[in-house]
């Protein structure tokens, strides 16, 4: 009798790339739900645009590279990049900017480097950074949270606003838009207002910014579930949130009139989605245990520096991209001690 041969081991893995990516997508649901609740249906429209464009762009590049399309699309990685970019965008961003950002993320950020596994930068953050640098005004046009919004947009209003730039009678984009809490703090601190006065405004809650605290709590829940399922490593989010908290605490203690509380830093902006979903992208992050601690820690620190002293209200995208650059060096210099070797 003849038998087929292959290489050992003959125990097949129970995990798959598509399963990992699907798990991360599922974990985004609480945060996404909070965004939908607080900022209206825009986020789902942006998500749909980004998903369609990402899949189409990936398929197009793969066919140009003469690669098999279906197995690659099935790995869900393009969908995850699209989702991470979409939830970072202002809800009413014009559709063509979403298309442009997604195209840039998938084509330039990912496929031109060789596709999944070969991209040195987080594709979603590449797309986000390009949009933020090129179209700063549109990218800062956020909506007020549900609590303080004078007008809530219906699905139809939202779709026509995104695709047609038309709003219901009597409304203008400028009237509708509202700066994010981080943006507000930054702008008014620059005008030498005190933090107490700034945060007395109706859009701030006791913890952080209204609406934003819910969104961050949603992503925190999803992130904890990811940790429990061991879909992400614990080092990056722990070090990320840890250093952000510690640096914020340090400056808050020195000058509470100019530096918001550590809790504010943790629960505003893209902190939680950044800590659990963006910085943990394994392809572009450091991969050794120690390297991941340093990587996550420096991202948290850079976010604090950019928010407090930089030109942009939030710094997750730039902090992540900067540390992506450092990941290979971190990996090389933090190799763990191998069995039988001295340090």
């Amino acid at each position, binding site marked *: 009798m003849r038998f087929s041969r292959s290489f050992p081991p003959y125990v097949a893995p129970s995990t798959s790339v598509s399963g990992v990516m699907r798990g991360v997508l599922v974990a985004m649901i609480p945060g996404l739900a909070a965004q939908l609740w607080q900022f209206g249906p825009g986020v789902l429209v942006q998500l749909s645009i980004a998903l369609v464009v990402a899949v189409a762009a990936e398929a197009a590049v793969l066919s140009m590279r003469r690669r098999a399309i279906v*197995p690659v699309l099935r790995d869900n990685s393009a969908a995850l990049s699209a989702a991470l970019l979409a939830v970072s965008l202002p809800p009413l961003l014009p559709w063509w900017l979403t298309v442009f950002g997604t195209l840039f993320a998938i084509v330039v950020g990912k496929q031109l480097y060789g596709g999944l*596994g070969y991209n040195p930068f987080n594709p979603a953050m590449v797309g986000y950074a390009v949009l933020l640098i090129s179209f700063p005004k549109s990218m800062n046009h956020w909506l007020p949270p549900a609590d303080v919004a004078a007008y809530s947009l219906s699905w139809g209003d939202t779709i026509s606003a995104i695709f047609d730039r038309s709003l219901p009678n009597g409304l203008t984009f400028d009237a509708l838009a509202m700066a994010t809490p981080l943006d507000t703090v930054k702008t008014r601190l620059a005008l030498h207002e005190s933090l107490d006065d700034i945060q007395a405004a109706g859009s701030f809650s006791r913890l952080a910014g209204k609406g934003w605290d819910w969104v961050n709590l949603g992503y925190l829940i999803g992130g904890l579930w990811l940790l429990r399922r061991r879909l992400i490593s614990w080092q990056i989010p722990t070090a990320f949130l840890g250093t952000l908290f510690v640096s914020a605490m340090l400056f808050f203690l020195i000058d509470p009139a100019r530096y918001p509380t550590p809790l504010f830093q943790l629960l505003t902006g893209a902190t939680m989605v950044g800590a659990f979903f963006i910085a943990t992208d394994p392809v572009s*992050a450091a*991969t*050794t245990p120690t390297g991941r601690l340093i990587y996550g820690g420096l991202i948290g620190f850079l976010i604090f520096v950019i928010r407090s002293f930089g030109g942009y209200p939030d710094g997750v995208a730039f902090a992540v991209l900067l540390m992506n650059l450092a990941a290979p060096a971190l990996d090389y210099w933090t190799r*763990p001690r191998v069995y039988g070797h001295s340090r």
Partner: protein
Amino acid sequence: MIRLWPFRGGVHLDTQKAVSSVLPLADADLPSRLVFPLLQRGGENAQPVVSVGERVLKGQVIARGADSPVPPIHASSSGLIESIRPLPLPHPSGLCDWCIVIETDGRDEAVEMTGTADYRTLSPRSLRGLINEAGIVGLGGAGFPTAVKLDPPRSVDTLILNGAECEPYITCDDSLLRHFPQEVLEGARILMHILGVPRCLLGIEDNMPEAIAALRSARQRDGRSAIEVVPVPSIYPTGGEKQLIQLLTGREVPAHGIPADAGVVCHNVGTAAAAFRAVVRGEPLISRIVTVTGRGVRQPRNLSVRIGTPIADLVRQCGGYSERAERLVLGGPMMGFSLASDDLPIVKGANCILVAAAGELPSRGQTLPCIRCGACADICPVNLLPQQLYWYSRARNLERAGEHQLLDCIECGCCDTVCPSHIPLAQTFRAAKSQVIANGRERERAHHARARFEARLARKDEQRREQAEAAKRKREALSKPNGGEIARAIERARARKQAASPSQVSGSAHGSPGTVIQEPDETHGTCPVQRPEPAEH
């Protein structure tokens, strides 16, 4: 209770031990043909000491190593030497090599075997000799000569017996410990006597309760004993030599070192039982317990098998293949290797024949690019970074792979079982390791060749320099007008000749065997010099 020092990483596998444990241990039938590959562990062939047509008895030596440390091969039953010819080997390469084939005669007649009732009367040296002469090699799979391991280059304080059968499916050690605990313990005492160590730790996986109970009751019957039976957690690869040493002693075998460097010698429990039989009963290693298992075979069980028995005979005795038999593996599913055919013999290190039914050992899905998730690094028992090793191995950057300690990979295959991209990591590392080793040899050869070439150049230079110097001296001597040494010498010689035979004129050769030849001379035009001719001209 002894303290355990858990090693890092490892994976929990579906052990499938029950498959082969339903039926009791039985003796394998005497096959009509026994096959003994001559290829030994070091890559050298043992030399046959019998000739075709000769009748041999069970226990008779049929081949010996050219060097003494290679243990001899014994006939495992009586019969005629049918042939000595190249046959396929049970080896990952699937290559053919020289084998001795015995046509058994069914009488199973044995040579006289005499043992030593009390091993304490023998010196460690002669015990090692007995063990080597009995053909004993490590039965855990590596097949290293046991007597060599019993003669460590430095002093050790602990003997570890490996009963941690961590590979799924395999139950041959479990079966041995359940049925022959006394032989294993007695063998352990012999090994301790040879090594002169005060303690022995017998590591056994905690999912083998019957074996643990059998060992404990056998140990109690002897009263006090320096042998400790230590249940260890069933995590793959607990039974790896380095992992078991770390688990039981907290010591690490240094890189490029051997267990003795950590003060430990480690043997398989089957090896200890074989040592007992060799010393006390005078029985060479001619049989071992083999697990025949998997859902591709109808009646999986453990068999006590004569070395040299074809795999096909064992499967037949176990009810033959089921319709869904798909893959034949020698060893376990993690570190065993697949065979193309069952027409291969059981060798001393063969512990398991695994016949997998379709879907039982599913092949991995399509390989995707590495996403550097690090799941492999989390479970690597030796703390490597497989994701980095894979990156460098694929890029053929073997230097960087070496910096990441590629050569320390124990090829356990844990990383393959957790990789979401379904990358054949262990196979990649096996290939890269052999490439590194081959490159190293190549470099050594090139280095050697260069050293020889440079020495030759230096020699040539020296010669040329000496020649040039000699020529220069000669030239200088001749260039001095009438005052040169040579010219004076020629003058002297001529004068002497003329004085001895006045009739001889310069330039002629009367009655002399020599001829006159003319040699060019740069300074003096032509100067005829007489030169003797070679005798055989």
